[in-house]
């Protein structure tokens, strides 16, 4: 059996899927690809920059107030990023305003410990960029199922909201439309979690909830 920390960002106990807070984001932003692109872009900007700032200014962060400062920095950077993205995409940012608030939670409850065990600022930055990549891959995998069945289209963010670049009206009226709704997302995530645990057990022999689980 391998050590959890050696199992990487995706399968490890400190990976994105090990924290329920990231599922909130995955659940919320994967009904439209326009929203997934926006949130992934913000995460790609916020995660690495936050890690780089926190790592490079470690001496200015008292251990006692570590969590508070980390939360302030990641929240401020998320707010700044959302303001910047609201210039080209005002409507998608408004649509995702509530979900943007979950990004700091996703960062602090995720794999930050690994980032600060990194030897250099660059290593922390690269590790956080990998975290963002893992989230984006998962989000895109979900949205590529949910949006075509729910809306019969795929969309990208634009100044006036989601711009659809292919549309099939026959598919959007199909019975699988529920996949784009909340209930469908829960069912899909249930299947993904089951598959994730099965593969993880096959690869590493260590289930998520302890050694007694099979």
């Amino acid at each position: 059996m391998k050590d959890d920390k050696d199992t990487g960002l995706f399968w490890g106990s400190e990976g994105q899927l090990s924290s329920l807070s990231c599922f909130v984001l995955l659940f919320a932003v994967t009904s439209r690809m326009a929203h997934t692109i926006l949130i992934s872009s913000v995460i790609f900007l916020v995660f690495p920059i936050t890690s780089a700032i926190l790592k490079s200014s470690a001496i200015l962060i008292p251990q006692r107030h570590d969590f508070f400062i980390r939360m302030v920095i990641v929240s401020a950077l998320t707010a700044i990023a959302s303001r910047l993205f609201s210039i080209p995409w005002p409507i998608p940012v408004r649509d995702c305003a509530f979900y943007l608030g979950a990004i700091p939670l996703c960062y602090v409850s995720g794999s930050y410990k690994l980032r600060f065990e990194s030897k250099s600022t660059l290593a922390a930055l690269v590790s956080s960029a990998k975290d963002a990549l893992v989230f984006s891959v998962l989000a895109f995998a979900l949205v590529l199922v949910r949006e075509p069945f729910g809306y019969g289209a795929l969309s990208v963010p634009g100044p006036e909201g989601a711009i659809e670049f292919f549309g099939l009206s026959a598919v959007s009226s199909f019975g699988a439309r529920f996949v784009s709704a909340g209930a469908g997302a829960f069912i899909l995530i249930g299947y993904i979690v089951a598959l994730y645990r099965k593969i993880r057990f096959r690869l590493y022999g260590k289930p998520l909830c302890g050694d007694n689980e099979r």
Partner: protein
Amino acid sequence: MKGNELSPSISRFLPFLWWLVATTLVVAISFFSANLERKTLADMIDRALKAAGDSRRVESSIPSWGPDGVASLAGERFLLKKNEGKVVVFTVNGSGASATLAAFYSSKKSIDLILPLGEGSRQAIPRLPAGLIDTYKYRILESEQKIDRRIQSK
């Protein structure tokens, strides 16, 4: 993280410094990007009105401070030309769909029109739970009437 090299008095001060720097940055960037965003929204409202065959147009945005600005419950607010009322831009989320809408509060103190801003919002409306837009409509109506009453009482 190592922070033991700093003296206790500096350590106590540093959280406030971090908070101050972060807040200042957010406020500064919000201030500079807000005007641009309001202009884009005003253009979108005008386009939505034109598409709906309505002759009303946006004059300016209403700042969130001053006698007419406070206590608005939801969204960005705009003034219509020729004193024809106000517009409130708000976002509704529900059942995996979200839409940005413009509610028109007329000079007769009622909301006479709600228009979706952009194609994505128009498509999202049928997917929103029934009655959700009406809930927002009544909240906005109540809020605007409250502001009107306060302005009249002064």
